[in-house]
């Protein structure tokens, strides 16, 4: 049974791998070709998505049936759910291509036109201060999306419980949002100046290691996780497009070398912010206690 399942999965994976490149070529040449082309494109994306979702479906259903040996409750509901996930991903990817990626690139190019920057020609002599609005934009996007992120709210409430109220849910959310905003803005500054990307990140790692030494131990796991939790599937495409667009627009930068990296900033700096916030909350609480007694 397991063997058959594995073989089936493997076959599907192979079919997908062999056919998808040609599928991509077809969809490219037909991209602007009307309803039928759109339909073909839709079906091809749907097939690719089926291939992507198959492993997780097989893992969960396979382990349920073969190892836990319990029949699946509500099979109809589950089936509807899987179909809904498939369709959802197809629409989402289409929407990314049509709206979110272009929007990020558009913002990057509009924020770097010579007229907007107030310079005659855009060349390498333009100082990094001229890109002022790019930093503000990057910080706002990071701050707003992190503050509105639902999974962060859940984590923040848990943190409030763990700490027995020393850490407030709102304070935690605010510090994560500030961390993400600052991180992305710093990442944009790095793209503009073209300084070595990994020095910033390794410096950040060092700060995290030092903070770990002093921070309340209970909060460590949560603080580490908070960085990765806030980069949601809406934020990632927007920020990626912004970085690639800026690397394209800023003279002397190359999208291949400088375009990526913003997400790394966005997931590192919340860790520092949360550890810092936990530290400060602990100090405040201690001095509060000692002044009482």
């Amino acid at each position: 049974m397991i063997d058959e399942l594995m073989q089936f999965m493997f076959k599907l994976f192979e079919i997908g791998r062999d056919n998808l490149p040609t599928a991509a070529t077809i969809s490219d040449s037909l991209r602007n070709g009307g309803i039928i082309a759109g339909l073909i494109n839709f079906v091809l994306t749907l097939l690719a998505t089926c291939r992507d979702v198959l492993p997780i479906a097989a893992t969960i259903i396979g382990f349920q049936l073969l190892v836990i040996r319990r029949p699946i409750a509500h099979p109809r509901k589950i089936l509807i759910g899987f179909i809904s996930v498939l369709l959802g991903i197809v629409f989402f990817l289409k929407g990314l291509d049509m709206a979110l990626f272009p929007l990020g690139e558009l913002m990057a190019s509009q924020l770097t036109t010579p007229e907007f920057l107030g310079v005659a020609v855009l060349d390498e002599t333009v100082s990094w201060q001229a890109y002022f609005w790019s930093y503000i934009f990057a910080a706002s996007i990071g701050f707003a999306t992190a503050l509105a992120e639902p999974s962060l709210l859940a984590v923040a409430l848990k943190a409030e419980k763990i700490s027995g109220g020393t850490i407030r849910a709102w304070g935690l959310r605010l510090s994560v949002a500030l961390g993400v905003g600052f991180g992305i803005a710093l990442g944009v500054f790095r793209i503009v100046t073209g300084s070595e990307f990994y020095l910033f990140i390794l410096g950040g790692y060092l700060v995290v290691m030092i903070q770990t030494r002093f921070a309340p131990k209970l909060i460590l796991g949560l603080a580490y996780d908070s960085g990765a939790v806030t980069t949601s599937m809406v934020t990632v495409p927007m920020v990626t497009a912004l970085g690639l667009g800026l690397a394209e627009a800023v003279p002397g930068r190359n999208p291949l070398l400088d375009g990526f990296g913003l997400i790394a900033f966005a997931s590192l700096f919340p860790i520092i912010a949360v550890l810092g916030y936990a530290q400060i909350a602990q100090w405040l609480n201690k001095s509060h206690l000692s002044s009482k007694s």
Partner: protein
Amino acid sequence: MLNSRFIKYLLGSCRDLAPIFAVVLIFQLLIIKQPLPNLADLISGSLFLIIGLTLFVQGLELSLFPLGEDIAYDFARKGSLLWLLLFAFCLGFSAAVAEPALVAAAQKAADIASQGNSIDATETAKADYALGLRVTVALSIGIALIIGVLRIIRGWPVYYPVFIGYLCVAVMTPFAPKEIIGIAYDAGGIATSSITVPLVTALGVGLATAIKGRNPMTDGFGLVVFAALMPIIFVMAYGMAVL
């Protein structure tokens, strides 16, 4: 009943997109003050995004999450160590393969790499490169979960593996091809998104609940950070091998 739930998810996906559109709109109206090109595409694309997110989240809540979280709890409670580790690997691997944000980002990375002549500019080469990236990330998340589960069972402090991971990243970076470093550092944050995080958190909290002397509130967390750290190391290795 289904309808009221559908509306809830619909509002949820609008709320997810709202901050981005609000910030962009404010910048467009107050600071850039330029007409938006392709407004029709942007609007219909945004509608697609909302429909897609709604269906996606509804589908996850109907199928993957209840099933996955139940199994994660069950395994954590009574599974033998070998099965548990195998399950953790499969869960991490398959969740990362399905992650839509990673699909989109890997495609972008392939486009950029072919424009920069790092790989051939054919669709086949790009598709292979993107798939290679995603499978590498998925493998690394599977392995990260094995280490994370072992950590919870053995009760190692959360920062040991994290620091070792940081050290590996620092040592490998100077030797990795420059073209891969950016996407490698991003890969972890990209892959720990809508499908991976809830399932991985369920596994961690389930384990910490089941094992005596572990606190689900404190020991249950810390899995996602390995899942975000390990891809950096693996993707840099992939870059050394491929580019």
